[in-house]
């Protein structure tokens, strides 16, 4: 009987469990879960604070998920080392787990740059885990003035989540626009306007020079620009770093993430990696990179699990993609923004499609996301645009732009 060890208990781990069990019903699976929670929907922590879900509904799988899949979970401990020569994982409680295959699904950790006076701030939180969200919930009151450092996906979702529960929110970022990793200037401006309409204030192109207690239990962030931002509660959402240490320590190939091939194998035999800690192939740039998004985590985990169990599943169509909305305004982005840009804008919406070498390479859609998955499929499948009615497709994503033969396969066959 094969022995599997999964380091981490997020969605990549859940995918890995389901991948293993699709191939091997009998092997022994052990999960090492640093967080003392069953696998939950991590991106839902802001929705929890917003009251759009609750702790029960946030569980990613049914109550009997682990028992049904015969998985042993070690809660509240972490893996401290992998020994590839003896095929064992050492756990922080001192136990040693032998393995035939191990999956590192250790996620990422918040990155906090050194900032003067940060240690004087008592109420400071990251926003990556359920425990972070629960701690933040305890800290905020209707009178709280909240400063969020980082106007990326995590910082802004946090802002939306607590907006009705605090007195004010200020978000600062070194970048001169919001969501700088996925939006261009014009799209970011549209989204920023929406956030500002809901009372969120911004200090962009600016960063904290120094935090200082104000003498009455609150604080002031002195900004590099000279501005002062008074606050009571601080959220640090600057960025994250992949947890690569376990594989790096044993000489595995590591860049920004743990380098994996299309079968999710690392450079060390028997060791796989998946999710936010892994650096897999991005079909839109033709190179490896960390794709720290939920769908990739699940799919990588699943493929890793199948392959660990002796099956064969490729994951070779990863790409950056995000569907993210704030206060009802929705943005969808995917792929790489390179090549010729077709665009269509109205005061409420922006559509940009990027075309290169007869392929759709990426897109940005705000306020016009209907059937966007059809665009995504063009990128994923590398569909030559000369084979479809791209003029029609530009106007709006539709399967009518495919040939009738193609549609016959889609709607007359099993897909």
């Amino acid at each position, binding site marked *: 009987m094969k022995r599997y060890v999964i380091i981490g208990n997020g969605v990549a781990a859940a*995918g890995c469990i389901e991948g293993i069990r699709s191939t091997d019903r009998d092997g022994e699976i052990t999960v090492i879960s640093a967080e003392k929670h069953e696998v939950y*929907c991590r*991106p*839902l922590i802001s*929705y929890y604070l917003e009251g*759009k*879900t609750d702790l029960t*509904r*946030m*569980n*990613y*799988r049914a109550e009997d998920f682990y028992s049904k899949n015969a998985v042993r979970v070690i809660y509240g401990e972490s893996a401290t080392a992998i020994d590839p020569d003896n095929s064992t994982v050492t756990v922080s409680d001192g136990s040693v787990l032998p393995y035939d295959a191990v999956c590192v699904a250790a996620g990422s950790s918040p990155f906090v740059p050194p900032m003067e006076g940060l240690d004087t701030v008592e109420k400071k939180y990251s926003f990556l885990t359920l425990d972070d969200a629960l701690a933040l919930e305890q800290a905020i009151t209707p009178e709280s003035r909240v400063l969020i450092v980082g106007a990326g996906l995590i910082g802004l979702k946090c802002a939306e989540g607590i907006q009705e529960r605090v007195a004010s929110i200020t978000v600062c970022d070194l970048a001169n626009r919001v969501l700088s990793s996925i939006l261009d200037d014009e799209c970011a401006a549209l989204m920023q306007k929406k956030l500002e309409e809901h009372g969120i204030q911004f200090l962009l192109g600016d960063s904290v020079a120094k935090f200082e207690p104000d003498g009455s239990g609150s604080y002031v962030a002195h900004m590099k620009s000279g501005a002062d931002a008074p606050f009571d509660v601080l959220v640090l959402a600057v960025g994250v770093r992949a947890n690569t240490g376990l594989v790096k320590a044993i000489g595995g190939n590591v860049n920004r993430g743990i380098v994996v091939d299309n079968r999710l194998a690392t450079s060390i035999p028997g060791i796989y990696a998946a999710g936010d800690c892994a650096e897999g192939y991005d079909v839109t740039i033709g190179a490896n990179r960390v794709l720290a998004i*939920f*769908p990739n985590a*699940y*799919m990588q985990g*699943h493929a890793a699990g199948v392959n660990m169990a002796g099956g064969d599943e490729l994951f070779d169509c990863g790409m950056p*993609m*995000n*569907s*993210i*909305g704030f206060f009802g305004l*929705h943005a*969808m982005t*995917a792929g790489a923004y390179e090549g010729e840009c077709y665009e269509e804008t109205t005061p409420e919406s922006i559509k940009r499609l990027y075309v290169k070498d007869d392929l759709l390479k990426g897109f940005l859609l705000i306020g016009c*996301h*209907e*059937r*966007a*998955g*059809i665009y*995504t*499929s063009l990128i*994923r499948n590398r569909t030559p645009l000369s084979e479809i*009615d791209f003029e*029609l497709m530009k106007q709006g*994503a*539709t*399967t*009518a*732009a495919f040939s*009738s033969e193609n*549609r*016959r396969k*889609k*709607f*007359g*066959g*099993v*897909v």
Partner: protein
Amino acid sequence: MKRVYVNEQWCLGCHLCEYNCAFANSGKKDMVSALAGKPIYPRVHVEGHDNISYAVSCRHCKDPLCVKSCIAGALYRGEDGVIRIHRERCVSCYTCVLVCPYGALLPGEDGAMQKCELCLSNSSGEPACVKGCPNRAIVYEERGDSL
């Protein structure tokens, strides 16, 4: 498993499937009180261009990207192969819209996503779009796969 298939050469573009779908999923006993004078939120949509039209609903993919991508764990594939949604778990993030290659998922009246579940658990018992199609442009049948 049995799935819904369309033949675009037979589709008249009458949109009856959309009304039958909305009615079957309304929980109401008569069509007029269910649908009259309000916007409908069907789970099947007639698409097309020029002289072509056809009904699009969930393909119940063997490898469902929507299920794998759902950040709320709301979409799932049952043991019968049918892709369903726990709507009370949906937070309307639209990730499923971003990944579905067919444009088959749309929000319902309350904002949560909804999709074709083949009418297996509503009053119709089998796909209402198929039952009501006047020209047999939509059929419900087995086309030679396991699941």
